[in-house]
């Protein structure tokens, strides 16, 4: 057992639950309602559901899932394009496992693989560079999804491909940034939250400092939170505490992992290869400068430039993932939830991503 396991110790966790309940009772008494916190991060959504904390606190704190699942926020057209890439002959598609079962308008990558397309799940993007090196007569495309934590690793893959002078390696970039989507959500006024639980691992790269705009411009109390049960609970505790004291601070409750400056090496590498771009988000249309794409001088690694993929406008479905990721509705409010839409037959990405809110509700909170 290592030092870090103290955060998951069961006794501490149970006592932490009690502390959170006690504090939020105070809030309830003060305001006559529950405190509303948004878990910006999909891993938080999952962890709250899987540990049972969300269910346990349901009468005490309202936790709303946010836009923090990279698969879920990707708009349908991008997903269709990535799947369509697999139809190009002599192409190997490399992807994180997360993308495999995401439903495209026609079919998923899993289905494409089943049809005989060469699609490989890798644990590390660098593995895909090795695959390109070992298959010089094939095109290798990595599906580059992810937030700020993952983007530096994509940059690292490009660096490797550059060093190896590979001409058969590209990335299909469809990355997302946290600050622009938070601004967009807060600006829209659609989502009513008292405070934010900020994504612990994205913050590793960004640093605590990068959230100052929340305090300075939006005055939203926010806590950078870890993922173990006790950390989840202290995150909530400190958020409610800020609310009670009406302080619009940003607290770093994950200081052993998140530094004030973030990871400068990672950010520098990322900036070497990528530049800002307006990205389309599911259910939100384009948000200015909300993602990263290749700088012009690295266009040779840009799968979007190399391959001419045209996809039709996706058909409208009853899937409400767009609202789910904005925190406007709960999965149970979607008519398809657990009817037409289940993890084995998902309609939207939120049902299939391991961070998807609908998946979390289906797997861990469904009762029937």
């Amino acid at each position, binding site marked *: 057992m290592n030092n870090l396991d*103290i955060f998951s110790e069961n006794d501490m966790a149970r006592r*932490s639950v009690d502390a959170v309940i006690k504090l939020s009772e105070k809030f309830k008494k003060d305001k006559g309602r529950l405190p509303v916190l948004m878990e910006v991060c999909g891993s938080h959504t999952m962890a709250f559901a899987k540990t049972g904390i969300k269910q346990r606190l349901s009468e005490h704190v309202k936790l709303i899932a946010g836009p923090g699942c*990279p698969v879920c926020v990707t708009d349908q057209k991008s997903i269709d394009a990535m799947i369509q890439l697999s139809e190009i002959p002599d192409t190997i598609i490399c992807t994180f496992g997360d993308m495999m079962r995401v439903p495209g308008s026609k079919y998923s990558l899993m289905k494409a693989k089943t049809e005989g397309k060469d699609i490989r799940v890798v644990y590390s993007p660098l593995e895909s560079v090795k695959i390109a090196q070992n298959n010089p007569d094939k095109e290798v495309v990595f599906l580059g999804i992810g937030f700020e*934590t993952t983007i*530096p*690793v994509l940059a690292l893959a490009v660096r490797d491909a550059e060093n190896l002078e590979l001409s058969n390696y590209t990335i299909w970039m469809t990355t997302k940034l946290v600050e622009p989507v938070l601004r967009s959500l807060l600006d829209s006024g659609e989502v009513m939250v008292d405070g934010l639980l900020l994504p612990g691992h994205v913050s590793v790269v960004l640093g605590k400092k990068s959230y100052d705009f929340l305090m300075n411009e939006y005055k939203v109390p926010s806590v950078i939170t870890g993922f173990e049960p006790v950390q989840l609970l202290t995150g909530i505790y400190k958020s409610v505490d800020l609310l009670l004291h009406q302080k619009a601070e940003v607290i770093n409750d994950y200081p052993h992992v998140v530094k004030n400056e973030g990871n400068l090496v990672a950010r520098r590498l990322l900036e070497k290869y990528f530049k800002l771009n307006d990205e389309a988000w599911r259910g939100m249309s384009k948000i200015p400068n909300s993602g990263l794409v290749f700088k012009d001088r690295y266009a040779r690694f840009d799968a979007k430039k190399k391959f001419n993929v045209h996809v039709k406008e996706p058909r409208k479905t009853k899937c409400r993932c767009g609202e789910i990721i904005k925190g406007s509705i709960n999965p149970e409010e979607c008519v398809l939830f657990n009817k037409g839409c289940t993890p084995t037959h998902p309609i939207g990405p939120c049902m299939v991503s391991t961070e998807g809110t609908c998946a979390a509700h289906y797997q861990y909170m469904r009762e029937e």
Partner: protein
Amino acid sequence: MCLGVPAKVLEVSKENALVDVMGSRMYVGTVFVPEVKKGDYVLLHAGQGMTIVDQKFAMESMEEWRRVLNE
């Protein structure tokens, strides 16, 4: 958003380190944590160490929290 696991560093070489997560081991990249040393914990994401985990801070925040709980 991003799976991250603390992993103890057992051996360090150029841009790579052998790490241990509760007994399971793996070679991971250390490009983003050039200052990493044997004995450190790194936070692992997609095969890369993304930061060095500060164990002192970890203990401190836990101690602080214990105090809150014991209040």
